[in-house]
């Protein structure tokens, strides 16, 4: 009853192919965006901005990138952390060597650098498939980790190998304080989430999905595997690289390659799987889940009034984390996005039984 698309007739192809074909979805997305821009900055506490919202948004962007590759194109990658590092170090070097460049341009260029590297490491996907590819992408992860630790030029020969971001100023707007950082990240994420949504419903997105569902069949009907796979790697790496630059500049401030190690890759993969493969919304839900879960688990003993040692909490955190992953995979292998879809189905009828 609440969520009914009856009566919304599409009379043109354009109307049928628009970004959010259902009126309610459109309204909902607009409301969420309006709420995020208009209300959240006044409601949320500083802690919420710093520890939850900002990392959640940045990691969502990375999850969208990974989802394009894994969820839409079916190429499993364990090298995401490495590509994030490419974005971060590219942004660092661009900002360092071209100090007059607008930071937004720096971020986009950093994404493009990640694209180039991503395509390079994506090329083997033409020959290697499945788990073999997944493990092969670890080559990218470990190589990039090493390169940023070892090649002095990338870190401007910082003796400790740790680099820090320059002050964030965009067109005279100083991005200081949690609210401004949040708004900056939110703006970027909104734009690129819409871009991603647009890409995956277009011809290129459909060719990715055909590749995922069955690559030989896709080739037979005239989709060039080279083009489809390489573009998936390129677009995915762009998103991941961009989020890496944001993670380094906006969230961490100073970093070393370890911030983008293989655990980051796994974390992003969890987000994508738990959120839902092949769903932009799922990327957000997965990121929210993975960001909030450890914090909530950490606070749990405090809320319940139980005294627990830090070590015990973090071990329990590991256990619960592992158990939840298995639980989700068993109960809902299509992820949180699927739960959302089920909810929408229910709303279509509610409150009537049929």
């Amino acid at each position, binding site marked *: 009853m609440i969520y009914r698309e009856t009566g919304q007739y599409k009379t043109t192809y354009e109307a049928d192919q628009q970004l959010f074909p259902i009126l309610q979805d459109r309204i909902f997305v607009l409301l969420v965006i309006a709420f995020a821009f208009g209300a959240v900055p006044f409601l949320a506490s500083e802690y919420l901005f710093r520890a939850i919202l900002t990392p959640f948004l940045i990691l969502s962007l990375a999850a969208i990138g990974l989802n394009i590759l894994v969820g839409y194109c079916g190429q499993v990658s364990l090298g995401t952390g490495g590509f994030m590092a490419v974005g971060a170090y590219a942004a660092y070097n661009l900002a360092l060597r071209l100090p007059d460049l607008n930071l937004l341009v720096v971020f986009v260029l950093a994404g493009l650098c990640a694209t180039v590297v991503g395509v390079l490491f994506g090329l083997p996907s033409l*020959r290697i498939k499945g*788990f073999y590819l*997944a493990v092969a992408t670890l080559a990218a992860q470990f190589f990039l980790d090493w390169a940023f*630790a070892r090649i002095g030029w990338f870190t401007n020969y910082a003796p400790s190998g740790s680099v820090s971001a320059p002050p964030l100023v965009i067109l005279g707007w100083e991005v200081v304080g949690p609210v401004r950082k949040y708004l900056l990240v939110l703006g970027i994420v909104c734009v690129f989430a819409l871009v991603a949504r647009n890409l995956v419903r277009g011809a290129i997105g459909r060719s990715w999905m055909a590749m995922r569902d069955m690559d030989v069949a896709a080739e037979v009907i005239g989709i060039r595997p080279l083009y489809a796979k390489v573009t998936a790697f390129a677009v995915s790496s762009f998103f991941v690289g961009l989020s890496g630059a944001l993670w380094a500049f906006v969230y961490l401030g100073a970093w070393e390659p370890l911030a983008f190690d293989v655990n980051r890759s796994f974390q992003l993969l969890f987000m994508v799987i738990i959120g839902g493969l092949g769903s932009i919304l799922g990327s957000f839900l997965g990121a929210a889940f993975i960001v909030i879960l450890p914090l909530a688990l950490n606070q749990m003993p405090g809320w319940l009034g139980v005294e627990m040692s830090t070590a015990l909490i973090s071990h329990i955190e590991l*256990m619960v984390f*592992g158990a939840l*992953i*298995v639980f989700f*995979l*068993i109960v809902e292998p299509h992820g949180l996005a699927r739960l959302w879809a089920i909810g929408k189905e229910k709303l279509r009828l509610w409150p009537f039984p049929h």
Partner: protein
Amino acid sequence: MNIFQQKWMTGLLLAALAVGALAPMLSGVAGFPQWLEVVLGGLMSGVLYSLVALGLVLIFKASGVFNFAQGAMVLFAALTLVRLMEKMPFVVALAIAALVMVAIAWLVERLVLRPLVNQEGIVLFMATLGVAYFIDGIGQIIWGSDIYTLDIGMPKEPKILLEKTFEGGILVSMEDVIAAVIAAALVGALALFFQKTGTGRALRAVADDHQAAQSIGIPLGRIWVIVWSVSGLVALVAGIIWGSKLGVQFSLQLIALKALPVVILGGFTSIPGAILGGLIIGLGEKLSEVYLGPLLGGGIENWFAYVLALVFLLVRPEGLFGEKHIDRV
């Protein structure tokens, strides 16, 4: 690329690698004894990688699961053993640890694999990641997160051979030699088990075709428990060897990351592949770190193993001995 070409390419690649491996000695960068020490060290590490890779291959063959939890199992097995040894003699502790590994296998089959049957490979892989986290957490809760010394009487001091022939002699770590012998014996025993026993035949049948095996009455669930138990026991042996070398502590589980390039190089489904792959990776890793590392700034062995595996995959996408995969629409 047809099969014929592929064989040529593989041969060429192996030849190139052999030349690369010999290069440091031939070019005079390193003397023969030094080079030999590195080669021996590499082979010894390689045998241990093979051992962990073997656990991965066993599970993949029988259940199509790429078991990332293998590393966590190595750590858990070693932790169980070392903490039990504080209270009881080695043999009893070993038996109990083995039983615990079998129990874990049974639980994993019951709670994780059975509900996920017929899911895609990637989902199963993620599930084993979850299992790995769970085992890490519970292992440290039960057994603690310190470094524990596991002393099973391995000799720590190395032997210097041929001191008269070469200056400085050739250093051989007796610990590594014993470890390699144990690992080799285990690999042999497993091969016999697979070839000669009824259970082994059933395992091979399941590996070939799940459905066909089930239709002729092979109980899939039990086979999975057996396979996971066997790889649990392999993990125990690997845990003992590595634990006695490094001390039993959290980082033992990282050995799983060492075994990954080995299995993709050798092929996910091949036991000989795991063995040969381990040797190639071990050798390549050590030679590259010692002779190429100084030129590049060091610390390269981690990615070198993966890049080496990647190069092999470009020539043989299913690994050296992996099953040929034929795509049908």
